[in-house]
C-alpha cells in the first residue's frame, strides 16, 4: 500500500474542510460551494440523534437551511444492507464496501447538492464510524482511509465520548442490546453483555485514535442532554458567525 494521497492538506496538516480527503470524485468539482458539513460522531446509544434534532431546530430558528443525512439511509443501499445484516452473509470486506456505497450514494445525491445550495448538512455519523468498525474487524487501516478518499472533510466534527460501562447501562435502559452493535458477528462468545462491552471498548479505542487525525471536537457524552446541546450550539454558533454562511432569505429579520 502507498501513502494516501493528500492534495488538499490545510495549514494544520489536516484536509481543508469542504474539500475531498483524497482523490475525491474527479467528475464532480465541489470548489467554493457555500454549504457546510457538521458531523456528529459517537457510538450507538450515546445520544447523537437527540442532539442532532435539537441542533437542527435551533439552526432553523436562526434562519439556516438544514439538511440531515444519516448512516445507511440511502434509498439505494438500505434494503440490501438490512437484508445482508438479517441473513448474516456479510464478511468484513463486504460489510465495509456496502457502507461505503451507501455513503457515496448519499454524498452525491444529498450532501453535495445541499452544499451547493448553501445548506448546513447535519450528518448523524460520518465516515469515522465506518473506519472504527472496520478497524475493530481487522481491515487494513490505510486501505479504508484510501477507500474514503472520495469523502468531503466536514467543517466541524463533534465526537460524543462515553465509556463502555455507562454506555451499556444506557443502551439497556432504552432499546436493548442488538446483534451487530454488540459485535456478535465477531464470534467472541454467546454472552451478549460481555460481547457488547468488549466490542464497544474496542470501538471507543478506534474513535479515540482518530480524534487527532481528523480534528474531532470531543464532548462528554455522560453530561445531560441540555448541557451537551448548549456546548454544541456555542461552538457551532461561533463557527457559523465567522464563516459567512448564507441564511435562508427573510428568515433573519423574523427570528
Amino acid at each position: 500500500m502507498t501513502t494516501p494521497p493528500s492534495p488538499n492538506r490545510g495549514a494544520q496538516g489536516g484536509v481543508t474542510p469542504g474539500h475531498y480527503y483524497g482523490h475525491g470524485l474527479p467528475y464532480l468539482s465541489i470548489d467554493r460551494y457555500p454549504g457546510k458539513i457538521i458531523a456528529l460522531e459517537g457510538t450507538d446509544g450515546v445520544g447523537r440523534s437527540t442532539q442532532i434534532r435539537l441542533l437542527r431546530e435551533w439552526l432553523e430558528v436562526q434562519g439556516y437551511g438544514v439538511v440531515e443525512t444519516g448512516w445507511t439511509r440511502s434509498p439505494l443501499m438500505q434494503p440490501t444492507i438490512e437484508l445482508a445484516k438479517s441473513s448474516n452473509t456479510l464478511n468484513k470486506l463486504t460489510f465495509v464496501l456496502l457502507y461505503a456505497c451507501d455513503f457515496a450514494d448519499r454524498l452525491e445525491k444529498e450532501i453535495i447538492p445541499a452544499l451547493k445550495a448553501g445548506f448546513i448538512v447535519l450528518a448523524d455519523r460520518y465516515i469515522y464510524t465506518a473506519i472504527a468498525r472496520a478497524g475493530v474487524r481487522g481491515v487494513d487501516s490505510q486501505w479504508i482511509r484510501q477507500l474514503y478518499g472520495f469523502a468531503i472533510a466536514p467543517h466541524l466534527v463533534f465526537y460524543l465520548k462515553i465509556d463502555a460501562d455507562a454506555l451499556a447501562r444506557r443502551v439497556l435502559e432504552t432499546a436493548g442490546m442488538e446483534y451487530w452493535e454488540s459485535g456478535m458477528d465477531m464470534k467472541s462468545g454467546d454472552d451478549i453483555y460481555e460481547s457488547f462491552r468488549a466490542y464497544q471498548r474496542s470501538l471507543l479505542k478506534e474513535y479515540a485514535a482518530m480524534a487527532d487525525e481528523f480534528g474531532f471536537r470531543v464532548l462528554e457524552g455522560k453530561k445531560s442532554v441540555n448541557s451537551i446541546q448548549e456546548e454544541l450550539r456555542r461552538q457551532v454558533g461561533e463557527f457559523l458567525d465567522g464563516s459567512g454562511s448564507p441564511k435562508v432569505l427573510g428568515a433573519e429579520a423574523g427570528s
Partner: protein
Amino acid sequence: MFVTEWNSSALVKAATKAGKKKNALTPMTFSLLHATDFADRLLYKIIPPLKAGMIVLADRYAYTAFARDVARGVDREWVRDLYGFAVQPNLSVYFRVPIDVSLDRLLARRVKLKFYEAGMDMGWSSNPTESFRLFQSKVLEEYDSLVGEFGLTVIDASASITEQQRLFRKMVSEKLERPAS
C-alpha cells in the same frame, strides 16, 4: 475447476438491479457496488477453490473495473487501491476487439444496447449506438494501458472462435505445465 462470473453475487444483486432499473447509479456507486460483488465472490467463491487446489476461471476480473470505472471518471489510482484485496491471477487474458466488431456482435444478438453498457449514464449522446461507441472507446483505451501495467496477455478477438480457442488453450496449458512462470 470452478467458474465465476462478474456481477453474480446474490448479496448485491438486489441493489445493482434496483439501481440499474432506475438508472440511479453514479460512477462511484456503480464502482463500489461492483467491488462489493467482487469481494463477496472472492471470499466465498474464489479463495476456497484456490485453497482446494482447483483452477478458477474468472469471466472478467478486477481489470474490468479498472477500465470501466475510469472511463466513467472515477480516479485511476483510487480504483486500483480499492481492489487491493484481490488475488493476483496466475494468467490474465484480454480478448481485444475493435469497437465496430463488438457493436456488430452485440446488435446481432439483441435489439437494444443496455443503458450502462452503452454508457448512457454519462449523458454524452442520447443515441445509444453513438453513446456506446464513445463510452466503449474510452473503455478500450483503458484496457490498452492495462496490458502493460498488469501484464495481460492479448488475444485478437476478431479472429475466428476456433483460432482464438486454439491460442487460448495453448496459453493455458503452458501455464499449467510451468505454473511458476
